[in-house]
């Protein structure tokens, strides 16, 4: 037993979750990431303050970088909105990267079949194929989970590696362009197969308005519709959901189809947009980064819109820092991981408050 009055911190459960903390913790996570990041990279011998400045502020202060933000944020937002729906239902799809790849492959398949044709119908058909591809790929874990209770975390993740092999097989093999001179890549998509630019003189393509539209649409569905309600109920309490008449199996299916479909859409938007063809470098980890986006956005589609921009800033800023202060690009991953880690750690403050308590030393019983 220690002597004297000791001060200690204690976590105390709040009567109700704090709404202030719910929205304050993502902001705090980003701010603390900057402080810790500056510290870590200074200790590593880099210009720590410069790293934070270049990664977090230069993309915002330099208007020329804004279009890069739009390009990077769009796929992140589209995938994260789908993941937000899935995670709300307590369905842990962490294989959005794989569904993104298969979506890209499916859309590219349509592009290759329609290569000699023209018409405004080709691009919408490619987008639909992308969505269907992502959905079909997410249907495998949905089937395994509902029929055999196989954990979707494992299946979605493992299927991601399968999809990378499938992509490589196609671009090195049957889909390799005859004019690529040995390069593993498909032919360049035609004009009717590529995304139009929406702001003249920039690189902003149709994917950006689609991302905004999807975020708003899904927000509306999740907050107002019976479907959105059922997803939230199943996620919060499977027993209450059954009592309320909502099928857990149906919700697992819907959660995976929605998140898979949106990841597939993001895939074909990337293939038909910035890439313009399918290459082995097509998997860019957007599917994994979108997990951070979904959580930073509080599993709210509109929140994902804001969080997608924050993560896009770190990507664009990371490229800047590479050239201006020779920071390795891997530093971006460290910043992003720190952000998620701090956010999850900070979540405890939503349900608990920290109190300092003075403890009288306990006397030993007589």
């Amino acid at each position, binding site marked *: 037993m220690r002597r004297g009055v000791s001060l200690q911190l204690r976590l*105390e459960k*709040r*009567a*109700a*979750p704090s709404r202030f903390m719910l929205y304050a913790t993502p902001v705090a996570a980003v701010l603390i990431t900057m402080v810790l990041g500056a510290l870590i990279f200074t200790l590593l011998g880099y210009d720590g303050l410069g790293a934070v400045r270049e990664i977090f502020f230069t993309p915002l202060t330099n208007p020329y970088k804004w279009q890069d933000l739009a390009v990077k944020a769009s796929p992140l937002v589209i995938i994260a909105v789908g993941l937000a729906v899935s995670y709300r239902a307590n369905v842990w799809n962490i294989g959005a990267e794989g569904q993104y790849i298969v979506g890209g492959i499916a859309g590219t398949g349509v592009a290759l079949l329609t290569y000699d044709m023209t018409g405004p119908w080709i691009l919408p058909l490619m987008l639909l194929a992308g969505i269907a591809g992502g959905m079909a790929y997410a249907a495998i874990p949905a089937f395994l989970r509902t029929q055999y209770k196989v954990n979707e975390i494992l299946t979605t993740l493992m299927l991601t590696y399968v999809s990378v092999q499938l992509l490589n097989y196609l671009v090195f093999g049957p889909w390799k362009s005859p004019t690529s001179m040995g390069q593993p890549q498909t032919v360049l998509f035609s004009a009717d197969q590529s995304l139009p630019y929406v702001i003249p003189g920039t690189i902003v393509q149709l994917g950006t308005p689609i991302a905004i539209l999807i975020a708003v649409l899904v927000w509306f569905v999740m907050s*107002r*519709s*019976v*479907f959105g*309600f059922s997803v*939230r*109920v199943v996620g*919060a*309490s499977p*027993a*209450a959901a*059954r*009592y*309320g*008449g909502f*099928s857990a199996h149906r919700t697992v299916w819907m959660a995976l189809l929605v998140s898979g479909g949106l990841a597939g859409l993001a895939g074909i938007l990337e293939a038909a947009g910035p890439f313009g063809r399918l290459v082995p470098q097509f998997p860019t980890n957007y599917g994994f980064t979108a997990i951070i986006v979904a959580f930073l956005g509080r599993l709210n589609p509109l929140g994902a819109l804001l969080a997608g921009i924050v993560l896009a800033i770190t990507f664009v800023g990371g490229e800047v820092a590479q050239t201006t202060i020779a920071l390795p690009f891997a530093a971006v991953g460290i910043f992003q991981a720190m952000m998620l880690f701090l956010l999850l750690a900070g979540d405890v403050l939503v349900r608990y408050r920290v109190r300092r308590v003075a403890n009288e030393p*306990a*006397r*030993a*019983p*007589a």
Partner: protein
Amino acid sequence: MESSIAPRLQLTGITKRFPGVLANDNVSFSVRPGEIHALLGENGAGKSTLVKMIYGIMQPDAGEIRWDGEAVVVSNPKAARKLGIGMVFQHFSLFEAMTVLENIALGMDSKIQSRDLEAKIREVMEQYGLKLEPHRVVSTLSVGERQRIEIVRALLLNPKLLIMDEPTSVLTPQEVEQLFVVLRQLAAEGCSILYISHKLHEIKALCDTATILRGGKLVDTCDPKVETSRSMAEKMIGAGLKDVRKVAGRTFGDEKLVVKGLSHAATSHFGTSLKDISFSVRAGEILGIAGVAGNGQLELLLALDGELGTDPQSVSIDGKPAGALSPTARRGLGLCAVPEERNGHAAIADFSLADNTVLTARDRLGMVSGGLIRAGAARTYTGEVIAAFAVKALGPGATAGSLSGGNLQKYIMGREILQKPSVLVVSQPTWGVDAGAAAAIHQAIVDLAATGTAVVVISQDLDELLALSDTLAVINGGRLSAPMASGSVSIEEIGLLMGGIHGTPEETHLAPGGELAVEA
């Protein structure tokens, strides 16, 4: 109270504050050696907090605990046991897959040889007439037998004060009587007993003194032998008690709910399978289903409200086969239900009350149009429920988790009753609800039946069932007894049916012709 010997336990000015609530406010009382002292109060009155401080699980913010005349600080349960304080909790902490002996050995503060321990256990059981086989695996034991493990565990320490927290809520009337024999013997040997309960007839039968708490404050210390159950109940709730008004000589209408040969395999390892259950409830009739916890009550409720699918013909609502229908479809036919578990089954803690209303009332009350939820309609109806059932809540936007247990139960009952179902199935409608609120819920159930609703009440509270039911049946091991008219059935009969396959016939008939403590 002047006495030549110091009280075994004396509390002075004990105060404990939690965020937003004063759980104990300046509570003082004392327990003499060999006294059976009741701690009486409604849920949330502060009984549990008080005994947790005596047992060292929590520390008081202010006040003094004296033990045999000396001031002590009970810093943890181990220190409490060292002083000679034993406690039997309402919820047992036993490992299902281990034997009685292994469970007791795990709970000992000092290491002791298994053979010596077994000898000691047998000695204690012999002394108090507790029947228990040390090598039985816990999962094969009835609830009453499990409680005996906890009692033996406490008795091994030769306690000078034994705290019993709501010990009879899981026992049959016969098991209650056996428990009282043990407790009286302990008291005669000089062990003090602090007995927590809200069952007044038990306290009248057992206790020498009763301390009554209300809202964290001590409101009275009285002699339960002189008081009536009613006078103590009124002290507990601080107001006059209302009786359930029930019209005598009512007639019933057509059969609304018919269950025929309902069977369902257990859904989990520790679940109960339903075996060939048949009964029917007519319009205006209240059927009570009694039974010890864990005998298939949950499974029966799930099979009735549609969470478990069965043969289509085994459940009919208003003449339509409904055994294979979903909960939503059954609500459409007019069946509403209230499961026993409030949090995470009947309601979702993180959701607002309005959202919890959408959970079950959306289709019956037109809260959905074109796949979208009409939030305004949900809020309006929630407001009506809050007003009609006097639910203490900040409004329809308050989360379910912010309500106290009793208020949440009032809201849930109100949410289903105001939907005017033609069949209502409720499990433990007043579990954990204070006496005033319980009376209001009982009246609402009776009033609903008077409008022609067929009601099934599943409960472990026999008093509640006898007050409410027109017909009574007992569930045991997943089988339902033949329904009996509740006016013609004795407590003893129900008790025997509740005991059913639990315990040997000798145990069940332990006190033939003996007086039963529980009276209607």
